[in-house]
C-alpha cells in the first residue's frame, strides 16, 4: 500500500483480536472526551501502538469493532498517518530528519553512517528487531541540525561520534536486560 518497503522484523505478527484490559481502559477514557465513538479512532490506534509497538490487522479490526465503525474506515485513518505503523517496527524507531536545514548541515553523511553501522536503509528494521530508521520532514529544531527523534527523546547537533555512542548505549542496555 505504501511505496516504501519495510522489511518485516522479528516482532510478533499476530496479536490477539481482543483488546487488552489496559488498552480498553485507556480507550474508554478517551471515549469520555468525545461525543462520537468514531472520533476516538486515532487516539485508540495510538493507544494500541503504544502497547503493541504497531497496529496489526487483528488489532485494527478489534479497535474498529470496539468503536462500532468499519475496519475499512478505520484503516483509512490508520494509513493516513505516517506514524501509525501498520507493519512491525523495531523497538527503537529512529525518526531522522532529512529536511532542508538538516540537509545543509550534512544529515546525509550521518544517515549513511547509521545505515552502514546497522545495515538498514530508510524504512528498514535491523534483523534483531532493535532499530527502525524512518525519514521525517522536520522536527522543529533547525538551529540544532542535524536532528533525530528516538524513543521520545530528541538528539541534536548529531555527529557520527554521537550516533556511535547512542547506538552502543542502546545495544548495551538491551544486552544487559
Amino acid at each position, binding site marked *: *500500500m*505504501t*511505496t516504501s518497503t519495510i522489511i518485516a522484523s522479528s516482532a510478533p505478527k499476530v496479536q490477539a483480536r481482543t483488546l487488552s484490559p489496559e488498552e480498553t481502559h485507556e480507550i474508554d477514557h478517551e471515549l469520555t472526551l468525545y461525543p*462520537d*465513538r468514531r472520533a476516538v479512532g486515532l487516539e485508540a490506534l495510538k493507544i494500541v501502538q503504544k502497547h503493541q509497538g504497531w497496529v496489526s*490487522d487483528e488489532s*485494527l479490526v478489534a479497535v474498529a469493532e470496539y468503536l*462500532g465503525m*468499519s*475496519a*475499512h*474506515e*478505520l*484503516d*483509512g485513518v490508520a*494509513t*493516513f*498517518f*505516517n506514524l501509525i505503523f501498520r507493519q512491525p517496527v523495531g523497538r527503537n524507531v529512529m525518526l531522522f530528519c532529512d529536511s532542508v536545514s538538516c540537509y545543509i548541515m550534512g544529515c546525509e553523511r550521518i544517515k549513511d553512517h547509521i545505515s552502514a553501522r546497522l545495515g538498514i536503509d530508510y524504512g528498514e528494521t535491523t534483523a534483531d528487531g532493535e532499530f527502525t530508521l524512518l525519514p521525517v520532514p522536520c522536527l522543529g529544531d533547525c538551529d540544532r541540525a542535524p536532528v533525530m527523534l528516538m524513543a521520545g527523546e530528541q538528539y541534536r547537533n548529531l555527529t557520527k561520534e554521537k550516533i556511535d555512542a547512542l547506538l552502543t548505549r542502546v545495544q548495551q542496555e538491551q544486552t544487559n536486560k
Partner: protein
Amino acid sequence: MAKISVDGVEYEVNPANNLLQECLSQGLDLPYFCWHPCMGSVGACRQCAVKQYRNADDKTGTVVMACMTPASDGSIISINDKQATDFRSHVIESLMISHPHDCPVCEEGGECHLQDMTQMSGHNYRRYDFKKVTHRNQDLGPFINHEMNRCIACYRCVRFYDDYAGGTDLAALGSHHHVYFGRHEEGTLENEFSGNLVEVCPTGVFTDKTFSAHYTRKWDLQTAPSVCAGCGAGCNTTPGERYGTLRRIVNRYHHDLNGYFLCDRGRFGYDANNSTQRVVETLFRHLQGEDGEVRKALTSTEAARQLDAMSSGELIGIGSPRASLESNMALRQRVGTQNFFSGMSDAQLSCATEVIALLQEPGLNCPDIRTLEQSDCVLVVNEDITNTSARMALALRQATRNAATAMAQSARIPLWQDAAVRELAQHSRSPLIILSPQGTRLDDVASDTFLGTVEQQIALVEGITYAIDADCPASTSSFNFDAQAASIAKQLCAATRPCIVSGISAESIELIRATGNLARALREYRHRQSEVKLSVDLCFAMPEANTMGLALLMREGGGSLSSALSILGKGAADAAIVLENDLYRRAATEAIDAALAGNTPMIAIDQLHNGFNAKAHLLLPAASMAEQGGTWVNYEGRAQHSYQVFQPEGKIRASYEWLVPSNPVSGPTVHGDTLLEELAAESANFAPLLELLSSRTGIAALMKSPRQSHRYSGRTAMHANEHVHETKQAQDPHSPLSFSMEGMLLQKDASLMSAAWAPAWNSNQAISKFQEEINGELKQGNKGVHLLARDGAQRPYSKVEYVAEEGIAKYFIDQLFGSEEISAASPAIQARAVPAYACISHELAQSLGVQQHGLLRLSTNRYSVELPVLIRDRIAAQCVGIYCGSDVSRADLTGKLSVAAVAQDSNVLASSRAMFSSLVINDTLPREG
C-alpha cells in the same frame, strides 16, 4: 435567476448553483473530475479553475475553482483566460504523473472521462521522467475490476460508495502521493450499488468485470434505449451488443426514476442473456418409436404450424408479469379475454389490484424515485426495499439527508458544498422508520426500527392510523403497540412531505389495506391542517418488470391462476399457452403437478429453460428484454418503451411474434404497436398508450436513427468468416431506429438516446449535453406515460381482518441477487447468490436446539424441506424467515408450518458457514446520532 458573464457572453443562471454546474448547464466545456451532478462539490481535483473578475474594471482577476464558487448575480468569469487554461493544463499534468500509458488495453479507453478532460485541458506531452507510483490491486469480487495505478485521486469513488450509497467497505487509504482506494483487505465489495463505481470513476480504476470477460469498445457496441427487467422500478438502461451477444448494461439517465445510478442486479443481471440456460430452439416433445418421448427441434415455420395445429380447439392462455404488455396482449387476443389467466399467484394479483385502487384515490400520490428523495419522513412497512427494488432504497437513503439540507439552508451553506453540509449535519437525519421482520440494509440510517411479524406490523400500522385519526375502524388485533404508534404518528404528522413505502412481497392484502388506511388517515389529517389539499406519498414496490402492467390488464377481464390450473387439471381445455412463466414459482408444486396431470397439451414460450417448460409439449424461444421492443409498466403505473437492441440469432423471437397471426414466408403479420393501439382503443385505462406510441414516431427528417455509432468498426468484415459478401443488415420497419451506422445522429435529440455521446465527451458524463440543465429533464426526452389516472373515488377505510396464522409465524426473504428469476441465471449474480436458507432468533434457536449454520426442517402437512439456518441478532421473536431462491417453492411452504432441528455433522456445518459468509446482511443497530 442571476446574470453572469463568461468570456464576455451573458448567461442567465441559477444563483443557487456553483459556476461549474451553471457553465455545464449552458453547454460550455469546462473540465472537472471530483464534482458530480448528484454529489456536489468538494474542490479536491482543482481541474475546473476559471478566472474571476471583481468588476468590469478588474483586468487582472483571480483564479478560482468554478465548482467551489457560487454563480452569484453579476459574476464575471473567463474560462479561456490564459492563466486559467495554463492552470488547468498544469493540474492535469500533475494528476497524470503516475497514470499509466495503458489506454489501448484499458476497458475505459474510448469512454474515459480522464481522456476527455486531458484532451480538453491541452496536456499532450509528458515531462515527468521519474519512477511512477505503483499499487497492488485487489480482487473486489465478481462485479468489479480494480486497477489502482490508473487512479488520479479525485475521491469520487468513496464519495459515492460510502457517502451516497452507504457502503462501509471501501475507503481512501494512505495519503499524499500513495493514496489508495480499496478495501481494508481483499474481498467482494458488499454494497448493492457497487456497479456504479464503473461510471462514477472518471478513469479505469473500477471497471465492469463481466464486461471485461467479453470486452468491446463503446463505439463497437450496438445500443438502444432500454428498460431494466430486474424489478418493477422501471430504471432506464443502455444494453450494448456485439456479435450477437449482450456485452454489458450501463445507466441511461431518467430524470424521474434512476437518475445516474443503477443497482447491481440491473447492471450485472444482463449476462443471463448469454447463459447456457437460454432456450434457443423450438422444441417439440413427441413419441418416437422405441426412444419413447423425445424433444425434437423444429424449424420456425414448422413450429408456427405446430403451434397453430395445437391451438385450434378450446385454448387457454396464462400471462406473465415479466413479459411485455404487447406479449400479454397478443396472448389475450389469441385465446380471448375469458380464456386469459393471470400469471401471478392469486395472492400477488389481489395485492397488486388493491394497490392499483389505492393509487387512484385522490390525495394519495405515488412518488417517482426522485420524489422519494424529497420526503422528510419515510415509513417503510415490511418491504425489504433494498432487496426487492434496490434503486428505491437508494432514494430513501438520500431522503434521510433532508435534515442536513434544512440545516444547511438555515446556516446559509449552499447545498452543493457537499463536505460542508455533511460536516454540519454530522449524524442528523430525517426520520426513516422501518417496520420489518428482520434487520434491513437501510437500518444504518433509520431513525427508528420495529421488528415484528407481518401481523404485528399490521397492528402497529393500525395503531398509527388510530393515533392520527381516532375515527378509523378499531383494530381487532390482540397486539398493542400504542406507545410506538403514537411516536411514529407524531413524526408523520409533523412532516412536510411524509411518505409511506411498502410492497407486495409479503403477499398480504391485509397489510396493504392497513397501509392504505394509514395513508388515508394521514391525508385527512393534512387536509384539515391546510387549505391547500396536501397529498400523501404512498408507493408499493413491484417485484417484476411488468407486474403492474399485467395487473392493469387483468382489470379488463380474465381469470386467476388457480382457476386456470383447475381447468387444466380437469382437462377442460384443448391446449394451453403459458407465456414466459415458470409456474412452479407461482403456485404449489402439488397444484402445478395436478394441473399437468390433466394432460392438456402445453405450449410454453420462454427465455430460459426451467422446471415447468421442461414439461411443455412445445417450447418456443422468447426474446429477452434487449432482444425485443416492448412496453413495461413500473410500480407507479408508468408505461415505458424499451427498444430492441439487436436481432437475436436463430429462432428466438419476441413472445408476441409467436402469438400473432403469421405468414410462413414473411413471419408475424401484426406488429407490437398495433397490439398497443388495439389495447388503447379497447380500454380507457390504456388510452395514454397512444401518446407513448406517437412519441416514438417523430423521426427527424424522415430518417431513422442508427443503433451503431459512427465509429462502429468492421461492419463489412465482421461476418467475413462466414460469407464473402457483406451480410444484409437486419430490418426494423416499425421503430425509429435502424440496425446500422447510417441515419440521423442522436446528438441533439435525447428522446431516442441510448449511449450518451457528444463531441469531446465520450464517457457517460456526456449526459450533461442532453439535459435541459444539469440534473434536469432530457431535451425532448420521453419519460413514459402514466396509466394510472388519479381520478378514482375517495374510498372509506378498508376493513382489515386478521387471519390468524397457524403454526409458527413466517416471512419470506428476498435477495437482490437470486430472487429475480432471469438475472439469477447470470454467472456474476450467481457468484453473489446463496441457496435457500432460514433465519431465526437466538431465543428460538435455543428452544429448538439448533446451532448457528445448522439444519432446520420446515414442514407443512404436505411438504418438508431442510434448510441451513442463520441465527440473527435482529429478527422478530418466535418466527422464521425463509429465503427460497430457486431451490424451494414459496407456495409449498404456505399453510401451517412447523420447524424442528435436524442433527447434522460438521461437514454440513462447514459448508453452510461458507455459504453464509458471502451473504450480506445488516444486523447492527442504527449508527449513533
